[in-house]
């Protein structure tokens, strides 16, 4: 599957987006911050660059690391100063994860959200089918809605008996 960056910006500066796309999530290093949808806007300024990000969860402790990593990446490519901006709206959603990103998550051992948030059941805690990332069985059950990071829940596979992380659909 090839990678397509889906964002709501009409014109994108390929050089800036390539730099942002080289920065990975500190907790889930198989996804870049562009894959994750955390990077919302990149703007060349008279001097330097303005980087707009949105938090996945308001209390996500990784946000500071993400902002610092992005800043460093742009500085290393000669962009200075780097101005970091945070926006809350539109609220981050797992709908922004591309199929490519979901596949990478699954290979890494984290079950991706199977449905979109438009499906109300997802938000009410009834994901359609969460597939075990190890043996691909659909016979799985939730252990806890809260997992090792804010964005994940804890599930287990009833076939291979392995516990696994599930990327919550929000």
């Amino acid at each position, binding site marked *: 599957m090839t990678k397509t960056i889906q964002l709501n910006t009409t014109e994108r500066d390929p050089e800036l987006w390539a730099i942002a796309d080289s920065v990975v999530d500190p907790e889930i290093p198989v996804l870049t911050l562009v894959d994750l949808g955390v990077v919302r806007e990149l703007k060349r300024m008279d001097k330097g660059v303005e980087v707009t990000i949105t938090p996945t969860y*308001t209390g996500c402790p990784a946000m500071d690391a993400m902002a610092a990593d992005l800043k460093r990446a742009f500085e290393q490519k000669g962009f200075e100063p780097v101005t970091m901006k945070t926006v809350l709206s539109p609220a981050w959603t797992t709908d922004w994860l591309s199929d490519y990103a979901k596949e990478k998550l699954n290979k890494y051992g984290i079950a991706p959200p199977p449905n979109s948030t438009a499906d109300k059941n997802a938000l009410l805690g009834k994901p359609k089918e969460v597939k075990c990332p190890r043996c691909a069985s659909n016979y799985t059950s939730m*252990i806890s809605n809260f997992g090792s990071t804010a964005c994940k829940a804890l599930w287990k596979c009833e076939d291979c008996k392995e516990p696994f992380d599930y990327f919550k659909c929000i």
Partner: protein
Amino acid sequence: MSQGINSSLIKFVVRLGDNNLILGHRLSEWCSKGPFLEEDIAMSNIALDYIGQARVLYSYAGQLDGGKNEDYYAYERREHEFTNALLCETPNGDFGMTVARQLYYSVFAYALCNALLKSKDETLSGYAGKAVKELAYHVRHASDWTLRLGDGTEESNKRMQHGIDELWMYTHDLFATLESDKELVAAGIIPDVAAMKGEWLEQVKDVIQRATLTMPDVNAWQMEGSRKGRHTENIGYIISELQYVTRAYPGCEW
């Protein structure tokens, strides 16, 4: 924005920020003391959500109030300057007590944030857009546990009922309003919080009854005063722990 509305808005935003900070701090006290590992993690996750929400709200209040920062609100104010709902500062008690507090608070906060989605203030509606997603998980977590404990063993039922009863007198205070809120309501910036109580009662009652628990007396005496900075004795203990480092080492960064 007129100066009057601006100062009314600061009061409302700080109130909401205080609710989140104090409840988040309380829940963080469960870290490493949860009844079992998954719940320990759940409590810490939920605590983080509230603290994250407090940061957003405090930053906004600071922006409205001549450039104060979030740390000012968390670390430099004294007890009577905090206006969190009394419920948020109640001690964790046993797990049943904490679940009861989560049920009462999260159902309230979810409804409030749902209403704030329509706020004419873009920062508040943006905040609400994030918060409702997190709160939906909190409501489900609290409801599930109320059902499991209430409809569980004789012991778990007794403890859950105890939590529901003990905290009841702090619930009316969630809906407290100030005179200054009125202009915010009229301007479409906030909902009429007091008017939200009926819906809250219905929802809480539904969970309590399904959990085979007894609904407390709706007309029982209730504590009040939080929006004017009147608290229970609990707040002092929280603030002294929360602010210890910044008081001991003013201006330190870590």
